[in-house]
């Protein structure tokens, strides 16, 4: 095949420098590059302004505290919260653990039930599994073929024993947006706390914790062009949400998360939020244009490709496609000029394909043929053109090697064949 060569993009001073001979990055749901403006803002807080923000006795501490509080306000502004309601954490995984476990443990004598969704991130599902072992009851709501939950099913699942309902804002694999405002209204009416893992939603879609009745929201730094190693948890003050802390110590962060704050990381997360807020409308339009072009370009040149998850209720920077009759990991090897991820977890010990795609009702065969494309702030028009050509040639090559494609061409229904499972 011809398109295996790697692409070199000229460096643009406004974007992070691209290294020659590295693939075009289309994995923005995995992580994002830190925006150079964010890095610049962080730098002084590593060196000359190194004070402990909790030091009350001198100017080093005061300036660091002021910087941290400004960052807290920037985060709060992005989600319609008050700065006092923002708790810094190490990332969305910690935020999700703290929100679910913290609330559950606080309420355990009165409410021992948790509601979540089968397509949540592993850190939510795993936290729930552990709470199950500790005596909690957990309801895992299914999703429809579009990846969205059924509100009637949610309503039926919430009881007067439900401590917390945890539903993600945007799914990390398929990018679909859950109806947060409707979920929040249901939770409020039924007296259950509403937590949302918004690691993939913050800065991508408008969020308002009050309009959406969200009580706890998890935020990640590195998904929004901020640094890795920091996140935040929004914890509502009115009506007050109480939780049992997981990390004990000096009582920082209103006692909910002890430990010295990492001033540079806080500053970085704050600015990342402010930039996302300022640029969200324009950037969403641009990304939607890129996605429309990518999908259209592929559909025009490749038959038998299917979008996984709802296309309308979806963040613009995500596309998840099954390329029928081509195995995803083999395809990733074919598109080595692109950094993407696959729903075919062929390298994992389990050999099981993506549980998210399976939850949509996708059969294992189609789940094995999927690729996730994530693009964002530094993705260019040229990247998309390159991606289309590269993917088309790899899929065509692999279909020419595929016995399933051959059977399909001969009119054989591959799903009707008796396969020997191995």
């Amino acid at each position, binding site marked *: 095949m011809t398109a295996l060569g790697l692409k070199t993009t000229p460096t643009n001073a406004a974007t992070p420098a691209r290294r020659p001979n590295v693939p075009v990055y289309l994995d923005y749901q995995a992580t994002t590059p830190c925006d150079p403006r964010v890095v610049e803002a962080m730098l002084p807080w590593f060196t000359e302004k190194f004070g402990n923000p909790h030091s009350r006795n001198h100017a080093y501490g005061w300036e660091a505290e002021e910087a941290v509080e400004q960052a807290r306000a920037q985060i709060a502004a992005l989600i319609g919260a008050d700065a006092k309601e923002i708790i810094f954490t190490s990332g969305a995984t910690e935020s999700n653990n703290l929100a679910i476990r913290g609330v559950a443990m606080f309420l355990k004598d009165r409410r021992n039930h948790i509601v979540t969704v089968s397509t949540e991130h592993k850190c939510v599902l795993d936290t729930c599994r552990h709470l199950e072992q500790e005596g909690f009851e957990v309801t895992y709501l299914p999703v429809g073929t579009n990846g969205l939950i059924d509100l009637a099913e949610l309503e039926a699942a919430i009881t007067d024993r439900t401590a917390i309902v945890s539903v993600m804002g945007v799914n990390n694999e398929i990018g679909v947006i859950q109806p947060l405002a409707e979920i929040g209204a249901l939770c409020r009416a039924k007296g259950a706390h509403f937590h949302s893992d918004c690691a993939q939603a913050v800065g991508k879609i408008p969020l308002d914790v009050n309009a959406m009745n969200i009580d706890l929201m998890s935020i990640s730094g590195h998904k929004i062009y901020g640094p890795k190693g920091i996140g935040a948890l929004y914890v509502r003050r009115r009506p007050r949400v109480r939780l049992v802390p997981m990390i004990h110590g000096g009582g920082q962060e209103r006692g909910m998360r002890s430990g010295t704050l990492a001033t540079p990381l806080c500053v970085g997360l704050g600015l990342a939020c402010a930039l996302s807020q300022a640029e969200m409308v324009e950037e969403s339009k641009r990304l939607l244009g890129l996605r429309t072009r990518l999908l259209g370009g592929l559909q025009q040149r490749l038959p038998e490709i299917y979008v996984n998850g709802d296309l309308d209720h979806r963040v613009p920077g995500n596309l998840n496609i099954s390329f029928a009759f081509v195995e995803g990991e*083999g395809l990733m*090897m074919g598109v080595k000029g692109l950094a993407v991820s696959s729903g*075919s977890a062929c390298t994992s010990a389990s050999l099981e394909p993506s549980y998210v795609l399976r939850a949509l009702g996708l059969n*294992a*065969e189609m789940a094995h043929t999927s690729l996730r494309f994530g693009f964002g702030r530094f993705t260019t028009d040229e990247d998309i053109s390159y991606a289309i050509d590269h993917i088309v040639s790899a899929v065509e090559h692999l279909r020419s*090697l595929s*016995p399933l494609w*051959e059977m399909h061409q001969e009119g054989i229904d591959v799903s009707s064949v008796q396969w020997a499972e191995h």
Partner: protein
Amino acid sequence: MAYSDKVIDHYEHPRNVGSLDKEDGNVGTGLVGAPACGDVMKLQIKVSAEGIIEDAKFKTFGCGSAIASSSLVTEWVKGKTLDEAGQIKNTDIAQELALPPVKIHCSVLAEDAIKAAIADYKRKAGKDDSAAAE
């Protein structure tokens, strides 16, 4: 995960891709694996009157290691007798391609494909030794 150079070479330049006429009495076809498991191999052999495998073709749905394993065995079986081809072990394939432990099943599938193709040929030729399980 990094692939070995040999896997990459077979993936980028697969040998003997294609299909033989499965209705031909001299052709044995092995189709193993399952789409739900993420790999399917079709291996075909054409056997001469002297019992020598004179041609082999494959098509594979799977990861790079699965494609490389099947490509490699088409090279290996050519020129061999059926008995010799039946002696090829998955461990030989895995060693030649330097497959990591998580990819050993690809070499197992390739061995299964050879055995299935041989069994199919023998069945057609009326030499079914009935030990030839799929």
